[in-house]
């Protein structure tokens, strides 16, 4: 596997992000694997921005820990990201020559480049980002032809002169390298078929459409709004509709209404919105109405850190709403997996008439990742409709708790649905016996889901000295850590439940039995995942370790390896 990670840092007008976009798309075209992330300073617009692109000849599952090549247009901007950008030992740094590197950075691989002057010379005064791409392409063996094509495409709607001057800037960058030292590594790869380049939010929106969603109601919130934007464009084209509601109470309300009326419906939100949806989740649960809530976690609590990732909405997703309120919680472990998770969410919601929360987080939802188009396929399940309506009972007690549903418009299927406890007909009841039986019915569905949806992944050897339990976006990082550890000869394995409620507890116990030491990894200060696991799984007291920390900084492969070595090796070798 050959891989290089690039970071470009600048201010609003510097085009750092645009350069990253072009680079990513070009690499995607030539079949390379890419993960692209962006970061911004506190200014709403025009402040510092940084764009990081990891390019690899083989499939990758997370951002890289370290940057191999850094472009800095302005060191002041870089300061903002200093704590987020870690440079690899042999990192190659190119900075604007007029802005000398601070002493703690300066090494023999740090070079001043007159980006502004060169771009102006090339006839593209705003093209220093493109020029930088030329340098990177030449130094690191990036697909130059694809990048040139991507540049041409990017400016295609502008005058030909703009295209030309930008291409000139790129070429000037390539040429400029003749005077530069060479980096220690270049990318080695074979061009293959193009990949798609998508973010988790975009994949979710496409998956929703594929799953049959035709009504979306939502209220904008970072980092989930792209789902609303995408569906507002596409649903009307296929006979569906979106509603931007006045708040999240209305969003989930409209979803419940749309679904009650027979149309697959969803909303997308983030923590604050999910908090507002608590009461309506309970209604969907007792009224047995399918509903999909895609929730993108960000730093919490409260408004917290809206632009960064964390895995701390877990407990709320599992338990929000008063009363005994069954719901299903699925998780997305990477951009590609978001497709399966979203379609599964609709399938489960529809088949079992239950609200499903699809948990992802900012790091997956907003990073762009290459994926193979053929992974965007998944079986679609439809709601069980009551066709024989003689003596129809909406909430008929059945073996798996699922009662076929009639849809408004169906003659003879009329019933009353109810947030009050109710009997099989939907009539309010405050009798204990009815309540107990209906609670049983509603929770039976979770058992049926557990049986059918055994969604989990396992990496590493079948028997291992250390086993990691993690979920969601941590999975990609852990997967790469496991690969490295295995390559080092360390028998580490990992188990990732993709379905969280109902929890595949038996499988987890089997996993625990197959490893010596156990390590739980998560980005939640209060150990939400670990605590949740304990509700159903016996975690061995003397061999369980928990590595739980706040979000706001991406989990590093190295961090996981360090923990593994600390808990496993130290005890093995000592």
């Amino acid at each position: 596997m050959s891989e290089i990670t690039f970071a470009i840092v600048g201010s609003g007008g510097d085009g750092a992000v645009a350069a990253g976009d072009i680079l990513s798309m070009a690499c995607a075209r030539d079949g390379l694997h890419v993960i692209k992330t962006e970061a911004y300073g506190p200014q709403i617009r025009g402040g510092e921005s940084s764009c990081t692109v990891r390019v690899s000849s083989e499939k990758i599952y997370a951002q890289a820990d370290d940057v191999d090549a850094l472009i800095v247009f302005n060191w002041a901007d870089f300061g903002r990201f200093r704590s987020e950008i870690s440079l690899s030992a042999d990192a190659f740094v190119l900075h604007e020559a007029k802005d000398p590197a601070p002493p703690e950075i300066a090494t023999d691989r740090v070079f001043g480049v007159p980006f502004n002057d060169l771009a102006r010379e090339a006839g593209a005064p705003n093209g220093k980002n493109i020029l930088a791409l030329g340098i990177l392409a030449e130094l690191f063996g990036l697909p130059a032809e694809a990048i040139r094509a991507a540049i041409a495409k990017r400016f295609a709607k502008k005058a030909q002169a703009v295209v030309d001057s930008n291409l000139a800037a790129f070429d000037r960058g390539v040429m400029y390298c003749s005077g530069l030292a060479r980096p220690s590594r270049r990318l080695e790869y074979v061009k293959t078929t193009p990949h798609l380049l998508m973010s988790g939010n975009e994949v979710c929106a496409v998956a929703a459409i594929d799953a049959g969603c035709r009504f979306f109601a939502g209220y904008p919130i970072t980092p989930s709004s792209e789902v609303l934007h995408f569906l507002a464009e596409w649903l009307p084209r296929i006979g569906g509709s979106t509603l931007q509601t006045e708040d999240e109470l209305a969003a989930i309300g409209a979803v419940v209404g749309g679904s009650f009326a027979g149309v697959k419906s969803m909303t997308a939100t983030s923590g604050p919105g999910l908090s507002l949806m608590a009461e309506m989740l309970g209604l969907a649960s007792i009224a047995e109405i399918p509903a999909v809530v895609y929730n993108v976690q960000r730093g919490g609590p409260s408004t917290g850190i809206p632009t960064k990732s964390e895995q701390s909405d877990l407990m709320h997703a599992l338990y929000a709403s008063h009363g005994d309120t069954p719901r299903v919680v699925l998780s997305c472990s990477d951009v590609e997996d978001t497709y399966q998770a979203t379609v599964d969410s609709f399938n489960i919601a529809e088949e079992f008439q239950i609200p499903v929360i699809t948990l992802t987080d900012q790091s997956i939802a907003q990073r762009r990742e290459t994926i193979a188009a053929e992974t965007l396929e998944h079986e679609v399940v439809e709601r069980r409709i009551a066709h024989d309506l003689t003596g129809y009972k909406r909430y008929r007690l059945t073996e798996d708790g699922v009662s076929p549903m009639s849809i408004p418009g169906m003659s003879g299927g009329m019933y009353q649905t109810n947030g009050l406890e109710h009997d099989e007909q939907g009539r309010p009841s405050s009798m204990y016996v009815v309540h107990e039986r209906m609670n049983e019915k509603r929770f039976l569905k979770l058992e049926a889901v557990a049986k059918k949806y055994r969604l989990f992944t396992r990496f590493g050897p079948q028997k291992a000295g250390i086993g990691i339990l993690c979920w969601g976006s941590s999975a990609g990082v852990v997967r790469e850590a496991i690969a490295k550890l295995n390559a080092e000869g360390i028998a580490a394995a990992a188990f990732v439940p993709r379905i969280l409620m109902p929890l595949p507890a038996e499988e987890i116990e089997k996993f625990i039995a197959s490893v010596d030491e156990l390590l739980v990894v998560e980005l939640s200060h209060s150990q939400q995942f670990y605590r949740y696991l304990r509700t159903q799984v016996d975690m061995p007291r003397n061999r369980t370790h928990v590595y739980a920390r706040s979000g706001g900084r991406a989990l590093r492969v190295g961090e996981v390896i360090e923990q593994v070595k600390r808990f496993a090796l130290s005890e093995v070798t000592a």
Partner: protein
Amino acid sequence: MNGYSPLSYKTDLKPVWCPGCGDFGVLNSLYRALAELKIEPHDTVVVSGIGCSSRLPGYVEAYGFNSLHGRALPIATGAKLASPALKVIAVGGDGDGVAIGGNHFLHAARRNTDLTYIMMDNEIYGLTKGQAAPTTPIGDKTKSTTYGNPEAAVDPCALAISFGATWVGRGFSGDVKGTAELMKLAIAHKGFAFLDIISPCVTWRGDDQHKEIRAKLRTLPAGYDKTKRTSADAYTNEADVVTTGVLFEVEHPTLIDEILEIRWKAQGDKQPPTRKDLLKAFTPSF
């Protein structure tokens, strides 16, 4: 169902309401209105919130949804948008609609959502045993206002007009026939129709409510121009009288009109987009 008679819209569930509650009248008016408009029960959805009045859907032969306190309108909106062929009627109390549900009332009206919204206005929280509602007159003593209600009441009709409702009327539950006529107009209206029905709570506002209100009733004058927002000013927020009738009515494009228009702009009669179209923005085709 054979024929459309008021009785045919009645379910076999017995109303939980107190003897004398105004909501019986509202229910009877609704049976009548549905029958006279020959509305198909199975094409009809009646959505409510929580409150005495919100029990109404259980008593109407239709698809019913007794939902959450204050949330009838978002649910009704979702049902209507997802399935525009349905006739969707939202019902509930004044607390449900003006207190906890006030924001949805504003936005459902603003969007001119194709809904009929019937409020059973008793100027009190009935189900929770008599606390002040936003419609309770200032100064009134209630369970939660020992020394008299400190807050000014709002008139739901005045609010509805300022929110952008395109049909606004007021009825009195004691006048079953008159209210049924208003309901028929409201249901037939294209867009957001709001009908405030004064529906006495005999238990928490006193047995005299029916008589007192009846004494205050009056109708709109001949020549009343219901198409002007300002016309209603004289007949809303009234102190000593209650004016019934259609206070306001205009024609505007409805939310469904807009949604259909958007679909047309988006795709028109062109072939639906392919998977390739959908993925185009993510595909490096250069």
